[in-house]
């Protein structure tokens, strides 16, 4: 039963990814007859003949000179080989190479944000739930009331203003040589940590408070369950009840919300990378957008969607491990 559920989830994730792949192919082709027009929009001072020639070249260069169906097949076979197409940048670098260069730097930010957010968030949430109605709880409630209305980029600007410019505790802009000088030496790692401090902090503040509020609500909901009363009536020690009964059950809704929050985290990071000049996929994406570099944009989109699908799949599988009831039926 459990096995079939897992296989079903994996197949469904692949199906969703297939649809995302298809969307990625068609989105740049919406509203234009010739994709070359999208890739190379007409410039003001260009004669019709000149533009026609440019379109001709673009078509040949990007393989638009065959039928759309054939293009789609070529796109899919390219993806199978890990080929996301060629970028518009000078020297026509492969999109895959550009992304692979930036990917680790983006992951540094997102993984540390996620870890800090989860660990601190769950910790604060459990504390607030245990001290329900007291100052720890009210502080969290007030903080989350305010935080949900504060956009991440505003927090980033404030942090950059005070911690970066006024008090100069952390660098407000990423060291442009950080990437090229990185050699796994201790000092290089320290540079990365210093430069990552503000971007991670600006994203983590929201995550911590969000996860904390979620944890607090989940723990309190479980505390009101009948089986906790049973555990008390059994004479179990408070710590046994807390760790073996309450916390384990409260993890279930947190795991579900974790998968859902990944997509938002990725979107927010685009803005944060831009503010701190961080050399990640977010800035790469915005650069691509400014240069109308569709192959690069769509490649990044595909990768980000793939990450989200993977994250949701993993959290779903963790859920199955934690909750024996899932096997009875699909939880959706």
């Amino acid at each position, binding site marked *: 039963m459990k096995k079939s559920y897992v296989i079903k989830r994996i197949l469904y994730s692949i199906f969703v990814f297939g649809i995302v792949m298809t969307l990625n192919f068609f989105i740049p082709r919406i509203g234009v007859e010739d994709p070359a027009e999208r890739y190379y929009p007409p410039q003001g001072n260009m004669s019709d003949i000149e533009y026609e020639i440019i379109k001709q070249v673009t078509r040949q260069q990007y393989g638009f000179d065959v039928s759309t169906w054939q293009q789609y097949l070529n796109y899919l076979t390219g993806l199978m080989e890990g080929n996301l197409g060629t970028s518009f940048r000078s020297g026509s670098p492969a999109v895959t190479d550009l992304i692979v260069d930036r990917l680790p730097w983006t992951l540094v930010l997102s993984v540390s944000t996620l870890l800090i957010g989860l660990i601190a968030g769950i910790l604060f949430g459990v504390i607030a739930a245990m001290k329900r109605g007291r100052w720890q709880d009210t502080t969290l409630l007030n903080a989350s009331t305010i935080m949900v209305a504060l956009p991440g980029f505003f927090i980033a600007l404030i942090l950059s203003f005070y911690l970066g410019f006024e008090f100069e505790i952390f660098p407000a802009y990423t060291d442009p040589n950080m990437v090229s000088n990185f050699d796994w030496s201790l000092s290089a790692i320290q540079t990365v940590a210093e430069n990552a401090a503000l971007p991670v902090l600006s994203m983590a503040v929201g995550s911590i408070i969000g996860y904390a509020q979620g944890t607090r609500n989940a723990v309190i909901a479980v505390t009101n369950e*009948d089986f906790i009363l049973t555990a008390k*009536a059994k004479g179990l020690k408070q710590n*046994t009840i807390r760790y073996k009964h309450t916390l384990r059950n409260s993890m279930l809704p947190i795991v579900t919300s974790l998968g859902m929050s990944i997509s938002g985290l990725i979107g927010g990071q685009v803005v944060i990378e831009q503010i701190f000049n961080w050399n990640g996929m977010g800035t790469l994406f915005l650069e691509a957008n400014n240069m109308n570099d569709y192959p690069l944009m769509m490649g990044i989109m595909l990768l980000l969607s793939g990450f989200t699908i993977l994250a949701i799949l993993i959290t779903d599988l963790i859920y199955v491990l934690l909750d024996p009831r899932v096997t009875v039926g699909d939880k959706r």
Partner: protein
Amino acid sequence: MDKVLKLRNLKVVFPSGHGIIRAVEGVDLDIHQGESVALVGESGCGKSVTSQSVMKLIESPPAMTRVDTIEFLGNDIKDYSAKQMQDIRGKDISMIFQDAMTSLNPVMTCGKQIDEMYIRHQGVSKKEAREYTIEALKLVGVPEPRSRAKNFPHELSGGMRQRVLLAMAFACMPKLIIADEPTTALDVTIQAQVLNLLRSMQKRHEMSLLLVTHDLSVVSNLADTVYVMYSGKIVEKAPVKALFQAPHHPYTVGLLASVPKLSDTEKTFSQIPGTVPHPMKKPSGCYFHPRCKFATDKCKNTMPPLTTLSENREVRCYYPLNLKKEATA
């Protein structure tokens, strides 16, 4: 007979934003060794709160509790600390809840949940605890206890789950078992099985039983003494036979009459008119007077005291019914 439990003047209120909910208003309760006592009343009359207060399971906040005495096996546990209470719960007093589905932890195997009792109260290893658990499951009639112990609650049938709860409650052979509506969530045929099991276990080990229920047929089968509760107060106390033969309080009369009998020739069900008073807006005088056809001005203005009529018979009414009937009985 030794007294197992002596509860005096228990009062529980729940302050809320809209007013004060008066759940329990001065309840006295006595349970002797080997005796089974039933606490009967409609839902919301405070019977569950009373039973949980005996184990001091009602938390403050939200509740506020006042009590003169909770004497358990001769010790006044009124001022026991949380730690001292933890040693008593499960070992000397244990509880069986209504809905086994929600009362068992859904992500822990049934066996593990029973193991916890032995590990906590008898200090045995996990392995030994599992052997005890399998014995306990066998005792309550669970077939293939070794493999059932590895099942999660949702994988068992309702009757099996209730048996798991029973095995858990009897694990440490407590002196007092509190059963809060133990069969309400079950099918009628399984109800009978579980009740028989409960009674035979209780009699065999000379345990005392506090049975909280609204089901009078369960009461007639299981109880020795009956307390009838209405709106937070005890309105009548009597041995079970006497109560069924000659109920004194008009509310008890109504309750008994509302149970359909096979011999009934009338085609309508008799019922008590009106509804239970809201716990924040209780009427003046006797709480039952708005629904009582015998009520007088005296009933409207003053609450009748709980008066002792004979040994083991108490009633909270100025005009008790069926007094002669008992004399003849």
